[in-house]
């Protein structure tokens, strides 16, 4: 399954990856080969087979709504690249 340069760029944009030109070409080839291999599932007739999203059938796991200690502001910001004035600092949107 051959995917195009435009498809790679589209997916990279959705995934917020600023790929270099070299990467676009390399990943185009590799992703085409991988999709060719995994794409064989799409040819299976699985009419009526339900999908599995989780390997154990847990339903509605509930907990009491009780307040518990949480991270302090300092802890929450401890790893932030730009902890500006007690907030997560970012450049203009």
């Amino acid at each position, binding site marked *: 399954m051959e995917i195009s340069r435009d498809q790679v760029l589209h997916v990279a944009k959705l*995934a917020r*990856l600023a790929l270099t030109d070299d990467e676009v070409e390399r990943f185009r080839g590799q992703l085409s080969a991988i999709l060719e291999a995994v794409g064989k*599932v799409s040819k299976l007739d699985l009419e009526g087979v339900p999908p599995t999203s989780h390997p154990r059938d847990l339903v509605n796991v509930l907990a009491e709504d009780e307040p518990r200690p949480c991270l302090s502001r300092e802890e929450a910001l401890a790893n932030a*690249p730009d902890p500006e004035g007690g907030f997560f600092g970012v*450049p203009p949107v």
Partner: protein
Amino acid sequence: MSIDIDTLRLTAEQVNDLLERREVSSQEIFDAYRAAIEARDGELHCFLRLTDGEGEGIPIALKDVIGTKGVETTAGSKILAGYVPVYDSTVAGRCKGRGLRLLGKTNTDEFAMGSSTENSAYGPSRNPWDPTRVPGGSGGGSAAAVSAGLAPWALGSDTGGSIKQPSALCGNVGLRPTYGTVSRYGIVAFASSLDQVGPVAKTVRDCAFLYSVISGRDPADSTTVDVPAVEVPAPGTADLKGLRIGLPVEMRDAPGIEPGVAEAIAKTIALAEELGAEVEECSLPRSVEYGLPCYYLIAPAEASSNLARYDGVRYGYRGAGDDLTEVYERTRNEGFGDEPKRRIMLGTYALSAGYYEAFYGKAQQVRTMIIREHAEVFERFDLIMSATSPTVAFPIGERADDPLAMYASDLLTIPSCVAGLPGLSIPCGLSEGLPVGLQLVGPQLSENLLFRAGHALEQAIGFDFVPERLR
């Protein structure tokens, strides 16, 4: 008084005995492992960082996807360089609670994506049996550390084989527990419907004991369940009388199984029969044929979602940019290595409009098919048995440029992972001087049975877990 502490030979159980009898102090034990690391880790590169640890108990190493309060946790990625968790993962907390003393954090393929540790942003680990070869992956650092006597035991994490496969390639015992038995709270997430934490050790008894420490329901991880009391098998020999073992023929006859691996497995099967097991062929045709494609759609799809959090805002690396979108894109492209990028793009593609049904939707249905196929086999058998890895440890670099060849390393471990089943890998012999792993898989929550069978086989096999070149 000072006794010679041979970390290559000592099991965690023996370390515990030495400590309980006060023949050595916990500091002497800790220092002995640190000396072994000093002597051998320059070559092997199992550890990403060392810690002084706390506690008076048995030392332990943790894979670097396991969050540790106050100790940098990078998941083998540059994007998490300098990230120091402000809380402990549940498993790290449970280990500390039992007095286990942290030696350090072990190397892993970036975000646990890989089968060789060559995808680590910090360089590959090497196999203690032959340093020109990979230790497997993603948890190659933990497996190689245990094998080389740099830690008596360790924790790894397993999404499609990252505990079992490196354990096989390094001659260790490794358990991927039933999905839901071990908390993932505080673990760097890869694919959440598959990720499990589990033990790597030198013996089945050590493995069972460590599983008893980390398993159990955790209110902080809603996917965890109540776990039956863990039964550590009694020391000494045991039989397998009455145990029905199935041999999936598609796993035995799969292309790419090395003759030396097949031979070691066949010998172990004969041994199982001598121990009284009823061994018969069984069939998992669609699980083996469609397991890899199913996994390599579901895991990347979940990864593309989980790894969306690395945006340079709250923690980790931040790339330079004039506006927020540019910061996101630069952060991610500069911070992630090739394998996470490949999987993020693959997953994003499989989930995108127009492709969702044909790829991700179909993979979820295939997953149901694989679960059903295993359930049918377990109506007739207590356990199934196969090789863990089709090959012994392969040379560093051999598969590095061919993602599909690398993915094929997990052919035999993936089907049971997809089905949420527990699997134990034990060493069962050598091929070309390198360890071969035997994989035992049972129904959900059958860990005690896996330990009992694994222990009986281990005693009968008598594998010497110390790498020949280090004896």
